[in-house]
């Protein structure tokens, strides 16, 4: 009974904390804009299958390259598909892939970083060397290699993106762990005879969580950039999946005539990336973490 009450209280506190952070973020103009854009995109992605006016893969020679009109709000592309339908469904692809990718990146990057920071010594040295080496392979080359050897399905793309964008989180988590590891409460937990697992779970994670989450939020926008670049180059999701990068690369050749089919996905992708970026910045500021001097590695 007692412990029930305690956990209940803790959960409520967490919920209140989240609300408070959201409020701090929304009170700044840039945070408000970022949150609004992000929420708009998420709602649109959730509702898009129900509000899409046409079938996203319906090809028709009669409706090729039509200019925007009442029937086709954003016009049609070179295969006669409705650009509005494909644009709103494109957000669904982008958000799903990058959200799960970021989750994987946060999990493995955060845990490995905390582990290295805690254990230190030889293991830490070796792991950080390998992470450094991975960091120095341009992401695009590594991703292209994996995707070209394993295929371009979302089952390959999500773990591959998660893996490559997680290596930077390892460093952040490790540095944050280093900052707390010498503090008294860790020393006393050790003195109480707690295991490494218990120290990680109860002492370190609550203290490094903020830093890792902020890093993850930033990485979400870089991952979206990477994912759409891959699609643009023809190594992302395969057609006819509605995807912004793919739409831009397909419509690019005809943009001197049918500029609408390239503008719509550009607006969609740019606004989502800017939304995530502003939100991540506001999130960092609300948590009191300064990342203005960090390089995008």
């Amino acid at each position, binding site marked *: 009974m007692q412990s029930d009450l305690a956990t209940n209280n803790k959960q409520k506190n967490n919920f209140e904390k989240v609300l408070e952070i959201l409020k701090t973020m929304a009170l700044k103009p840039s945070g408000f804009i970022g949150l609004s854009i992000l929420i708009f995109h998420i709602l649109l992605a959730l509702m898009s299958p129900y509000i899409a006016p046409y079938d996203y893969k319906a090809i028709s020679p009669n409706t090729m390259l039509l200019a925007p009109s009442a029937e086709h709000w954003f016009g049609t592309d070179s295969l006669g598909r409705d650009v509005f339908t494909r644009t709103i469904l494109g957000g669904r692809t982008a958000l799903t892939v990058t959200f799960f990718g970021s989750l994987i990146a946060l999990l493995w990057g955060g845990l490995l970083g905390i582990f290295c920071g805690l254990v230190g010594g030889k293991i830490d040295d070796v792991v950080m060397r390998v992470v*450094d080496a991975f960091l120095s392979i341009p992401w695009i080359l590594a991703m292209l290699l994996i995707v*070209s050897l394993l295929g371009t399905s979302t089952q390959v793309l999500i773990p591959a993106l998660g893996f490559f964008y997680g290596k930077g989180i390892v460093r952040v988590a490790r540095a944050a762990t280093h900052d707390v590891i010498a503090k008294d409460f860790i020393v006393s937990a050790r003195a109480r005879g707690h295991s490494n697992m218990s120290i990680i779970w109860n002492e370190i994670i609550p203290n490094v969580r903020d830093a890792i989450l902020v890093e993850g939020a930033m990485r979400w926008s870089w991952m979206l950039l*990477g994912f759409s670049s891959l699609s643009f180059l023809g190594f992302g999701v395969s057609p006819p999946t509605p995807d912004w990068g793919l739409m*831009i690369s397909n419509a690019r050749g005809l943009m001197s005539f049918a500029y609408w089919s390239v503008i719509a996905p550009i607006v969609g992708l740019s606004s989502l990336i800017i939304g995530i970026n502003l939100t991540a910045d506001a999130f960092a500021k609300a948590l009191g973490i300064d990342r203005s*001097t960090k390089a995008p590695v």
Partner: protein
Amino acid sequence: MLLLILKRIGLGLITLFIVSLITFVGVEVLPGDACTTYLEREAYGPALDACIKRLGLDIPSYQRYLDWAANVVRGDFGYSLSGEMPINEVLGPRVKNSLVLASVSILIGIPLAIVLGIITALWRDKLPDIIISTITIFSMTIPEFISATLLILIVAIWLGWLPGIVIIPSDATFYELLSNIILPVVAISMIMTAHMARMVRSSVIQVMASDYVQMAILKGVPYWKMVFRHVLPNALLPAINVVALTIAWLLGGVVVTEVVFNYPGLGRLVIESISNRDLPVVQALAIILASIYVGINLIADLMTLMLNPRLKSLQIKK
């Protein structure tokens, strides 16, 4: 000091060694080898045998790695599968073209970034800062392929000022290159400048708030003298490292930009060799791009060391 420099060079070499292992093991572990991947459906009979013989896939893999690594150290990357010529001959002109593109972008980008960064920091939260900062945030968040596509759409198609794509052979002369690279340079230096200007801005703001600058203000040092004598030298120093990381990070973006503008550089070679499933070239590119990354970082570390006497006695841990 000398020891520290040697140690940094050593760490860079170890990193490159691990990169070479990763690319080699990666290709070994992932399904298919260089020959079956390249030949695809024709991977049987004499064609496969000949390919295996040529690449020496019939000898044990550790032996093959050692041979390959020894050749790479000597500057020989082996044979390209698709072009059937030495990889060095494929790489040569591409490296030159990318170097021209990158150095012109950097030469424009760095001074511009420093000026913009200083302006935004000195007029912090005033109109110049708000305008420039909004533009920089936009240009650094939007993917390279979007800004490049928009540049082509607006400058080349709607205004008709410049050609939209580069149509030159990979062995074009320097002058042919220069007249064709305006739009690619704008696309790359826009993003690079934005990143670096943000770094310079926050660095200058930090230094402006420091005690010695406050002291200089109280002593009555003239404003501009204070900016140039006290603020800038201290603010630009920490920015060097970040600038290096940014340049190295942009290698990936250069690949995309080269593809959009059809520019015959290393970036397009990455895409071409992967589309052709030419794994030996991909391995060579991985090593070269990683060396550039490690090299830029090393130079930045050394420059920071040289310029900052306080760091000489310290061990720099990143």
